[in-house]
């Protein structure tokens, strides 16, 4: 016999999977009417997820992860701050060389050992779309969401 907690958890995880499936289906949809409907269903599923999350917490079916400790946040923050500074410094240098230099050194800077260091990051910053895809924080979503 399943307990209330088991059932709540089943729906908590099921609705989360549903949100991901609906999001993927909406992105892949070509038919505009279907796309719109999938987006609407996804939005409703998100509301439903919030609701079952609150219930799950209340009946002790689920415990969210503890908040990140200050020093861990600071460590990650410092890493990205340093990265940003390197990129800005690199961008200033690359402007001096012009776009031809950028095109010829982009590959070398990415595959080489000097990633994120000195002029190597200057070319990297210009490839913003690719950079966004490999940013670990952005690709994993918010901590709040993943905790559920």
């Amino acid at each position, binding site marked *: 016999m399943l307990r*209330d907690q088991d059932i709540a958890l089943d729906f908590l995880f099921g609705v989360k999977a549903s949100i991901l499936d609906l999001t993927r*289906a909406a992105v892949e949809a070509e*038919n505009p009417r279907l796309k719109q409907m999938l987006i609407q269903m996804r939005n409703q599923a998100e509301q439903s997820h919030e609701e079952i999350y609150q219930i799950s917490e209340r009946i002790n079916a689920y415990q969210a992860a503890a908040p990140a400790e200050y020093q861990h946040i600071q460590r990650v923050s410092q890493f990205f701050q340093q990265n940003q500074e390197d990129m800005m410094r690199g961008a200033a240098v690359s402007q001096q060389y012009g776009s031809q230099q950028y095109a010829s050194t982009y590959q070398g800077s990415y595959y080489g050992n000097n990633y994120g260091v000195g002029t190597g990051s200057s070319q990297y910053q210009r490839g913003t779309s690719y950079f966004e895809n490999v940013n670990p924080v952005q690709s994993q979503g918010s901590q709040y969401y993943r905790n559920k």
Partner: protein
Amino acid sequence: MAQISNMELENLRHLISAEQLCYAKARAFAQQVSDPQLKSYLEKQARSAEQSIQNLNQFLFS
């Protein structure tokens, strides 16, 4: 019949199956839970899944 791609058809097949399972589970579980808020949630989920199945089926049968 609505114009849909093979990928859309596959996604519809998957989503309709998932909604049907959700509907069946929500209805069955709503009968057995003791928490009133959870019961209300499950009943609402069953209605929502039923509506979703109808909406998704439009693209297969219209």
